[in-house]
């Protein structure tokens, strides 16, 4: 009895694909990436949840000033950037696997995966731009909404 590392969804067997469905070692690298990124994400996301939901007043303290205060520090910029990229790639690869398991028609699989990759590129690009172009003290905003260092 051996461990099945990445079992497929249970379903009736059917004729195998008529073409090669793997490209070199892509699936192997994907398998390794899920485990490597998973370990890092446990640390990043548990830290994220602890600082945002447990420390101080948690969710009720989150507002523009809170985010601006965090992103004033390169430490949290790097933390969030790493979390964004790893979580999005980890999640995209997971959903890709699910699509491959359950979408049986070639066109369905193709459409779903194109939609997935478009969403991934848009969200990763948007999130990255937001982290790097963020202004914690935007002009013409009421000081009461901004972090205290804007007026200091």
């Amino acid at each position: 009895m051996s461990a099945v590392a990445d079992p497929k969804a249970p379903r009736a067997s059917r004729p195998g694909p008529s073409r090669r469905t793997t490209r070199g070692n892509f699936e192997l690298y994907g398998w390794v990436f899920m485990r490597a990124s998973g370990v890092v994400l446990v640390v990043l996301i548990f830290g994220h949840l602890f600082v945002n939901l447990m420390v101080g007043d948690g969710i009720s303290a989150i507002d523009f000033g809170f985010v601006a205060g965090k992103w004033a520090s390169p430490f949290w910029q790097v933390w969030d950037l790493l979390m964004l990229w790893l979580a999005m790639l980890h999640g995209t690869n997971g959903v890709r696997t699910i699509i491959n398991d359950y979408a049986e028609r070639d066109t369905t699989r193709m459409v779903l995966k194109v939609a997935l990759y478009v969403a991934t590129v848009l969200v990763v690009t948007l999130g990255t731009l937001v982290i790097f172009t963020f202004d914690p003290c935007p002009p013409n905003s009421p000081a009461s909404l901004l972090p205290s260092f804007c007026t200091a």
Partner: protein
Amino acid sequence: MSSAPTAPPRPAGTLYRGREGMWSWVAHRITGFAIFFFLLVHVLDTALVRVSPEAYNDVIGTYKNPIMGLGEAGLVLAIVFHAFNGLRIILVDFWAKGPRYQRVMLWVVMGLLVVTMAGFLPRHLMNVFGGH
């Protein structure tokens, strides 16, 4: 072979079929799928800091109502399960004795899940329902 027809043999037992291994795989898949869609929304709502402080505060304000507060508790439950069970999968894959202990490790995962939620829930529910 001319023996009388008999019932087809039951599928051989595997590590995963129908037991803790299979159900943890199902739960891992469902939680991962749900977390991914939350993540898409969460990046979009956070991106509103780039629009204006007012826009961000308006939208994040909806995360503070009690129904969303319970949703966040469910989200954290899903994340913590996915995290601990993911570490269990890594041990099954890479630790020589992992496959032998996969069932025990699932109950360790469930125990850690309970302990983590016991630490998180009171604090979070106080923040959500504590009347700020």
